[in-house]
C-alpha cells in the first residue's frame, strides 16, 4: 500500500555517507547528476555508473530498498527507453513500413535508460542517508545568499521541514481512518472511478480535520516557545565540512576527471 513507497525515505544508519555534511551531499549530488548527463560515450557512462554504484554500496543500505525506489519510476524509464529506440539515425537494424530501429536509436535508448536509473539511484542515496531535518538545514544554508534579495529562506526551509515531518504521520492517520471506515462497511475496492472517488470522502474529511487540528496544535506549541522566525536563531547541530567530506570531494574529482578524459579520448556515441 501507500507505505511501500520508499522514494525519499530516510533510513537511519552510521555509514560514511550518513556522516557526511548535508550541504556537501546536496552539491555533490547535483554535480554527479551533471556528469551522468555529460558522459557521452559508453566508457564514460560505465565509469560514472560504477562509481555511483560504489557510493550506493558505501551507504550500507540493502540494495532491495533502492530497487523499490526505482519501481515507482520504472514505467517512465521503460517508456522513454522504448520510445527512443525508434528515433535516431545511422545503420538500420530492422525496418517495417515507417518504423525502423537504427544504431543511433538503440544507443539513445541505452543512454536514456541508464542515465535516468543512475540519477534516481544517486538521488536516493541523498534522501536515504540524510534525515529530513539535515536536508532542509542544508538547503537553507545553501540558499542563504538569496536573503540579499529578500527571499524568506528560513521560512521556506521551516515549511519544508514541517511538511516532510508530517508525511509519515498523515500516511499513518490515513491508514487508520481507512480501516475505521472499512470496519463500518465502506467499500473502497470495487466500483467504477466515480464511485471510488466518492468512497474516499469518508476518509478525506477526517484526514483534513486532523491535519488542521495538528497544524493548530503545532502553531500553538511554536508560539509558546516564542518562535518568531529565523532572525538571531542559533543551531543545535552546527554543520561542518569534515574529513569524510574531503575524501568524498577527492573521490568525485577523480571520477569526474576520468569522465572528462573518456569524453576526450573516445568518440561521442550520443550527441
Amino acid at each position, binding site marked *: 500500500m501507500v507505505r511501500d513507497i520508499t522514494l525519499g525515505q530516510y533510513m537511519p544508519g552510521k555509514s560514511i555517507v550518513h556522516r557526511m555534511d548535508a550541504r556537501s551531499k546536496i552539491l555533490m549530488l547535483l554535480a554527479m547528476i551533471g556528469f551522468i548527463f555529460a558522459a557521452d560515450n559508453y566508457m564514460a557512462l560505465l565509469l560514472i555508473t560504477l562509481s555511483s554504484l560504489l557510493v550506493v554500496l558505501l551507504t550500507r543500505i*540493502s540494495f*532491495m*530498498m533502492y530497487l523499490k525506489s526505482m519501481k515507482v519510476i520504472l514505467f517512465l524509464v521503460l517508456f522513454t527507453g522504448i520510445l527512443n529506440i525508434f528515433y535516431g539515425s545511422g545503420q538500420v537494424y530492422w525496418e517495417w513500413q515507417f518504423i525502423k530501429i537504427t544504431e543511433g536509436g538503440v544507443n539513445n535508448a541505452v543512454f536514456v535508460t541508464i542515465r535516468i536509473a543512475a540519477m534516481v539511484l544517486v538521488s536516493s542515496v541523498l534522501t536515504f542517508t540524510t534525515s529530513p531535518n539535515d536536508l532542509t538545514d542544508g538547503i537553507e544554508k545553501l540558499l542563504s545568499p538569496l536573503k540579499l534579495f529578500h527571499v524568506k529562506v528560513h521560512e521556506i526551509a521551516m515549511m519544508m521541514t514541517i511538511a516532510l515531518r508530517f508525511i509519515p504521520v498523515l500516511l499513518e*492517520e490515513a491508514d*487508520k*481512518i481507512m*480501516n*475505521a*471506515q*472499512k*470496519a*463500518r*462497511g*465502506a*467499500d473502497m475496492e470495487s466500483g467504477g472511478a466515480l464511485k471510488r472517488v466518492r468512497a474516499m*470522502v*469518508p476518509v478525506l*474529511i*477526517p484526514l483534513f*480535520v*486532523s491535519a488542521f487540528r495538528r497544524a493548530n496544535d503545532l502553531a500553538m506549541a511554536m508560539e509558546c516557545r516564542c518562535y518568531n522566525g529565523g532572525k538571531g536563531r542559533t543551531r543545535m547541530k552546527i554543520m561542518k565540512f569534515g574529513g569524510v567530506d574531503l575524501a568524498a570531494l577527492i573521490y568525485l574529482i577523480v571520477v569526474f576527471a576520468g569522465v572528462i578524459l573518456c569524453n576526450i579520448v573516445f568518440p561521442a556515441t550520443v550527441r
Partner: protein
Amino acid sequence: MSVITAENVTFTYGKGTSFERTALSGVSFSVEEGEFLGVIGHTGSGKSTLVQMFNGLLRPTSGRILLNGKDIWEQPKKIREVRFKVGMVFQYPEHQLFEETVYKDISFGPKNKGMSEEETDKKVREAAGFVGLSEELLKKSPFELSGGEKRRAAIAGVIAMDPDVLILDEPTAGLDPLGRDALLSEIVTYHKVRKNTVLLVSHSMEDIARISDRILVMNNGRKAMLDTSENIFSQGAELEKMGLRVPQITKVMMLLKQRGISVNTGVLTVEQAFQEILSCLGCCGETKKW
C-alpha cells in the same frame, strides 16, 4: 457454542522487508457466544493486532480465524459481510466522524449494510440510546460535540450496524474517570440487553476486572492466560512479570497473604475484599487475639 475461534494464528508485519516484525505467534483460543471477554496486555503485546484479525482488516500470515465455525477468508471477496457481523470500534474512534450531522454519521454503517430507511432510522435511534446521545445532539454537526460525545457518537456508529460481536479497542482512552465509568456501564448495559458477544481491549486492569466474564492475557504476541477474572488475578506475581498491574485492592490482598494471613487473593472489588477480610477475621479471631 463459540462465535470466534482463532486457530494457531500468526501475523508478521512487513514480511520480506527490513522492517519485518512478528506481532502474533501461534495464538489459539475461542470466544463463547454471549460472553464478555476482556483482552489485556502490555503495549506492543499484540492485542490490537489480534482483534483486527477478527473482522478481516488484517489477514493472518498463517492459521485461521473461524466465525460461527466458518473460515472468514474462505471467500476473500465476501470479507465485507464479516465486517457487518463483527463490529469494530478503534482507538480514538472520534477521528473517523465525517458527516454533516451526527445522525447521518451513525447511519453510515447501517446504510453500507443495505438496511432500509425505516430500519436504519430504528437502529440509529436505538444505538444513540445505548450510548446516551440525546435527540438534539443527533441533529448537530459531529464537529460541534464535546470529546466524550464524539466518542459516543462514533461508538453508536458501530453499534447501529447491529453486529453479532462488538469489539472495542481501548474505548476509554483519554476520558476522565467519570466519563470512563459512564461509558463502561453503557457498554455493560448494551451487552446485557442485546445478549451478544463483546470483546473489550484495554490495558487498565481495574476496568476489565469488574466487567469481564473471562480475560485473555497477551504477552509478546502470545496467549499468556485465558481464564475467569478471579483466577487470572490470583496469579498477581505472573502478571507483574508481564508488566501488568493488578487492581489495587487485589494488590492489598496479595500483601496480606505475604504477611501470613490466609486470604483469597482473587478478589476484584473493595466490597469483595471487605467480605473476605471479615470472614478471615471470623475464623482466626478466636485463636489469635486481634
